[in-house]
């Protein structure tokens, strides 16, 4: 009998089972469930039709005003109100209101609310971000969220696992974003459909937590159920003094079964840009060089980490955003905002002519705070470049890491830092 992958181990532990195998269905007990101002209103309606009086645990449900906040119009204000009133009615401990709120996937790890060994589900497709911590986390829908809020359980199919063995030394400026764009370019937007993406290899130790969050965040962009890194010394350091619950450190068995193993030498990966309109259209930045742009967005659950803002600020320091470009920088949480303030990064952005916004998902999904008009092109550090993703259906989004985004803001066209 073969061993188990990391994902199989976590799911077995949460299903009360010795072992699980790919393809079987389990009702897993979850450690935390997440909803936001877009997905929770439908979940709340469904929850109320189940016929239970209370949620399964008021300290295990996280509700974050994240997407259309501060509210952009009356309808979004009504949705935020539905979630706010539900949180009050059920005395939800983990509720973030504007001012303390921001991008859900940046808040939960930062607050130590997701820890290694957890099983987490969230009504937001980028819930897979937390796999960076060595937990199982995946996106679900609103009805799933309703059921999970009532029962503390979620039905899941145990996924097959793809193993990505990363080796080699990264080149300058190459970040987690470039690695994941390269991988999605290689396997396609359904290259990991229903599967788990498990990362290992000598280059993983060299990846900082923010790089791992970025890589896990975009698992869904390859169709995956989750992306996961076994916890190591960096994970432990991240969790020390932060984790609100006791972490459980697990790793895959040496004889675990993988559907496929990809070996990737990260020294071969340069700065990447994903062309419209799919994340799989990743190419070396050189192939995008010279494409005129109208907007740059630096932020989101993919690349709004303080380290990303530092990279962008280093490039923008003493330079000016090109006159034909609107540059928008959005720190995803209050803490990252404060840290950027203390380090003088926000001063650098504003001095360069960038607009700094309050924590929100904002322009990533074409919600507000930077919507594109017909024919406009943007470079974004977010995760999706679908048709109409950031605004008009005839606009175009190029995905990149913070280095390319900041350099492009200065150049007025897609550029790498070396071009400046």
């Amino acid at each position, binding site marked *: 009998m073969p061993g188990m992958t990391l994902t199989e181990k976590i799911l077995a532990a949460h299903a009360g089972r010795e072992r699980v195998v790919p*393809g079987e*269905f389990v009702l897993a007990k979850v450690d935390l469930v997440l909803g936001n101002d*877009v*997905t929770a*209103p*439908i979940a709340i*309606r*469904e929850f109320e*039709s*189940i*016929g*239970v009086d209370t949620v*399964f645990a008021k300290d295990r449900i996280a509700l974050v005003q994240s*997407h*259309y906040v501060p509210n*952009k*119009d009356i*309808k*979004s204000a009504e*949705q935020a109100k539905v979630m706010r009133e539900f949180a009050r009615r059920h005395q939800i401990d983990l509720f973030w209101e504007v001012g303390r709120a921001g991008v859900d996937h940046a808040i939960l790890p930062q607050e130590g609310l997701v820890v290694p060994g957890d099983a987490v589900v*969230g*009504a*937001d*497709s980028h*819930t897979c971000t937390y796999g960076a911590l060595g937990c199982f986390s995946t*996106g*679900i*829908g*609103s*009805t*799933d969220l*309703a*059921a999970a809020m*009532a*029962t503390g359980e979620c*039905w899941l*199919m145990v996924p097959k696992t793809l193993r990505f063995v990363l080796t080699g030394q990264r080149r300058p400026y190459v970040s987690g974003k470039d690695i994941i764009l390269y991988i999605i370019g290689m396997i396609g*937007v*359904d290259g990991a*459909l*229903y599967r788990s993406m498990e990362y290992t290899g000598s280059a993983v130790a060299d990846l900082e937590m923010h790089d791992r969050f970025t890589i896990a965040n975009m698992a*869904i962009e390859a*169709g995956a*159920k989750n992306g996961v890194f076994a916890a190591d010394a960096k994970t432990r350091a991240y969790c020390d003094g932060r984790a609100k619950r006791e972490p459980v450190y697990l790793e895959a068995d040496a004889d675990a079964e993988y559907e496929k193993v990809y070996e990737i030498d990260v020294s071969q990966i340069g700065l990447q840009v994903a062309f419209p309109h*799919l994340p799989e259209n990743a190419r070396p930045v050189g192939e995008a060089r010279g494409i005129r742009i109208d907007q740059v967005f630096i932020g989101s659950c993919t690349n709004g980490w303080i380290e990303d803002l530092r990279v962008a600020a280093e490039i923008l320091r003493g330079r000016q955003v090109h006159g034909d470009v609107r540059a928008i920088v959005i720190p995803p949480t209050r803490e990252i905002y404060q840290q950027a303030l203390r380090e003088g990064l926000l001063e650098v952005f504003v001095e360069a002519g960038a607009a700094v916004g309050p924590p929100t998902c904002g322009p990533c*999904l*074409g*919600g507000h705070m930077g919507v594109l008009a017909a024919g406009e092109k943007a470079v974004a550090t977010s995760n*999706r470049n*679908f*048709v*109409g*993703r950031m605004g008009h*259906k005839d606009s175009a989004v190029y995905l990149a890491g913070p280095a390319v985004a900041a350099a492009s803001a200065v150049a007025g066209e897609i550029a790498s830092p070396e071009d400046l």
Partner: protein
Amino acid sequence: MAGRAHKYGDHIDTDIIIAARYLVTADADELAQHCMEDGDAEFAKRVRPGDYIVAGENFGCGSSREHAPIAIKASGIACVVAKSFARIFCRNSINIGLPILICPEAVDGTAMGDELEVALAAGRVRNVTRDREFQAQPFPAFMLEIVEAGGLIPFTRARLQKAGARE
């Protein structure tokens, strides 16, 4: 019952199915008015109750927004037949009772506007226009249980009642 096929390619994402600018409402009929808007602006005007969406690989990729299957269901679509489904869209459809079938042969054998008949329980897709019949992949037993219960909410309600009380 026969309905017309609305045919699409691979990787139809949830931003196409329902653009984020409409996520400020959870009203099914309002969402239906904007279904497929950025990919097929005529869909909402053209679709009739009992019609089918027929699509390629990875249908519903992207966001977890349940507004996507809700918009399709409220458009009157009787079933989505695709080569494969993105996982969150798949579970959302099962959970809310939007019928879906995986049947690559039917997708390849169907053109925009063809008349189809779908026998859901049997998983059979008949193309009336071309007089061909296709067999879809069967659902796993666990998912069938949810479908047969009428969706995840009735399924959960029944489980909770059976358990008597929550642990």
